[in-house]
């Protein structure tokens, strides 16, 4: 208690000092006193570039506001933001994963969006519904520029090599398995040298399993606003068995092959992988690499599902007065159709406003189309601790793959563990 009081005290004195400095700055600089606000996001080449463009455009339109972009690696992003904001030297506008919202709100790192600039009704009318994950009570705490969904990436060359039509990706899970079996390559000793399907639980597969496979095998991952785990049943076990069989039975992929699924796919050593919009830039950058995107395969009954997520931008608790107004202005720009189009072009992520996203051109686009289609039946997991929940799913798969546990036992154990985690976090 003593500790955080000190932090609070410290940040308070800092605020005082900053306020004083700001006052002095105003009187001295007079009309030239532009407000400077700081924006933080993690390092991801295309995102940083897109943001540079947006800041440039924003500053041109608002000469009295200066925006400084700070970036750092995704690893530990959340910790660093918390620590910096707690220490009083954090950003004014910060990017955060929607799943972190509760933590940020509880820690008073961010403040609700001002309702005059961001009326709730307008948000609900214009944005995709998954934006509601940013709503607590009557308040919205952030808005995304873009949203992301999952899709099936396929390597055209490997399909053609196996005598398959490179332009007909699998439509169902069964198709996926068959085509993966046809395209997998093994050496004399039986080691996989090129995967049919790249397994990677640490990547996007855990989302695919949780929100897509579980539903497609007749279950539901969660209930009660994602506070009750419900996948620990026969449907969950079937979904898990489908996934682990890819390695154990059909032997079309191997967890850890080339370290990561996206790496294997990028290296042309995997026919299929499931990944998100954010990977588009990285794959497009490779010369002579022919790949395509398809909507996630449906099950035999034609049931489809998807997982959508997004990084939202929020105003930190630190921004006050002039800075808060400037931050709100900047955030409004970041959520504008113009910003979304820039983002789509540069990063490849889908616009968060329905009207901007669902244009005919976008829907017909061979790459954006499947992602947009996925968005219509997407679910968004309300994580309490994204990393820990992913770890539980990874461990579940490992127990089956490495320790020979039955999928039913593994899925039951995972459900128990995840429920305990959720209970512990939400109780506090």
């Amino acid at each position, binding site marked *: 208690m003593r500790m955080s*009081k000190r932090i609070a005290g410290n940040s308070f004195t800092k605020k005082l000092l900053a306020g004083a400095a700001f006052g002095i700055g105003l009187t001295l600089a007079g009309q030239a006193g532009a407000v400077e606000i700081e924006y933080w996001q993690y390092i991801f080449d295309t995102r940083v570039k897109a943001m540079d463009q947006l800041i440039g455009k924003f500053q041109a339109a608002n000469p009295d506001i200066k925006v400084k972009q700070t970036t750092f690696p995704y690893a530990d992003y959340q*910790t660093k933001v918390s620590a910096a904001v*707690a220490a009083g030297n954090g950003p004014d506008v910060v990017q955060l994963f929607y799943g972190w919202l509760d933590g940020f709100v509880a820690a008073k790192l961010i403040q609700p969006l001002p309702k005059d600039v961001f009326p709730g009704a307008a948000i609900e009318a214009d944005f995709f519904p998954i934006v509601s994950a940013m709503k607590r009570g009557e308040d919205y705490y952030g808005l995304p520029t873009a949203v992301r969904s999952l899709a099936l990436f396929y390597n055209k060359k490997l399909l053609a090599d196996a005598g398959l039509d490179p332009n007909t990706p699998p439509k169902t899970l069964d198709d996926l398995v068959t085509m993966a079996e046809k395209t997998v390559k093994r050496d004399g000793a039986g080691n996989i040298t090129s995967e049919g399907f790249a397994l*990677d639980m640490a990547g996007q597969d855990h989302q695919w399993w949780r929100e897509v496979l579980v539903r497609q095998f007749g279950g539901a991952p969660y209930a009660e606003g994602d506070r009750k785990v419900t996948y620990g049943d026969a449907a969950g076990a079937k979904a898990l068995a489908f996934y682990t069989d890819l390695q154990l039975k059909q032997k079309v992929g191997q967890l850890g092959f080339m370290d990561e699924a996206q790496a294997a796919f990028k290296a042309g050593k995997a026919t299929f992988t499931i990944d998100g919009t954010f990977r588009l830039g990285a794959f497009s950058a490779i010369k002579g690499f022919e790949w395509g995107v398809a909507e996630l395969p449906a099950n035999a009954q034609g049931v489809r599902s998807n997982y959508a997520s997004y990084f939202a931008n929020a105003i930190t608790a630190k921004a006050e007065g002039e800075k808060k107004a400037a931050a709100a202005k900047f955030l409004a720009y970041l959520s504008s159709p113009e910003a979304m189009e820039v983002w789509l072009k540069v990063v490849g992520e889908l616009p968060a406003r329905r009207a901007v996203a669902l244009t005919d051109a976008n829907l017909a686009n061979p790459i954006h189309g499947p992602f947009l289609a996925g968005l219509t039946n997407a679910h968004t997991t309300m994580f309490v601790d994204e990393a820990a929940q992913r770890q539980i799913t990874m461990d579940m798969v490992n127990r089956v793959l*490495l320790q020979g546990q039955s999928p039913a036992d593994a899925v039951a154990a995972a459900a128990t563990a995840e429920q305990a985690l959720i209970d512990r976090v939400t109780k506090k």
Partner: protein
Amino acid sequence: MHEAPATPGTERRAGRLSDRLTLSAKRVLWAWLFLAVPVVFYGAIRFWPTAEAFWISFTDWNLLRPAQFVGLDNYRRLLADPLFWKVFANTFLYLILGTPVSLVLSFAIAYHLDRVRFLHGFLRALYFLPFLTTAVAMAWVWRYFFQPVPIGPINNLLASLGLPAQPFLRSTLQALPTILVPAVWAGMGFQIIIFLAGLRAIPTSYYEAARIDGLSERAILWRITLPLLKPTLVFLVVFASIGFLRIFDYVYNMNTNDPGGPLDSTKPLVIMIYQTAFKSYDVGYASAQTVVLFLILLAISLLQLRLMRQPT
């Protein structure tokens, strides 16, 4: 008396100071003057944080919310946490596998290297080189080595020899020993050099006397070399043990996708501390883990003192 006379002013001032202080008092003043900054440093950067760590371990602080005193809750939670016991077992596995393997290898190499004259310096350099590498860099090099086909050189070698590929880092059984390989590899250079120094310090007359008495080389090794090497051995055992108990860099970097290895099979205590503190912000719980680490290391250090005090 060519000495330039001091000016009267300085003379008087010096006189007044010396009137008040004896020589030894001035010496004491100098000593504390020298120690002033370091004493503040050790107090603020070592002792205060240590006390703080103990204090935090009795709270439920998680960086984001105010801390509350919770007594021994964190320790109770630790004892009931299966992950802790897994991690505890892993940490000791690193210790009881790593220490003997690296010391036996290092001693065998040093023992023979000591007798080699031809290109001695060159051979020594080959063994010493890994000690100068950066653990993070080498963790990635070794991670590359242990990749499955088609990347990993070791598995490719196995495949070309017609041997079955090994999962290494992707196996709950093999992952921990796999991580130990680079850790042992990097530490050996230091141990070999220290062994060499210890061997050099044994007077040759002991060996000469033993040879005249007709002892075999093996008997000389067991009856003379090893007993006389005891201080070196104790030092290295403790040094290596503490190193393995605190292993972090290799584990962190060799398993970034699934930190701590598949099903936590490689996770040592320090990784758990790091994750609890800096990934989950569970600072109170993490502090309790550091207290446990402290107690383990303390036990090892005390053991060292006892071994050192025993007469050879």
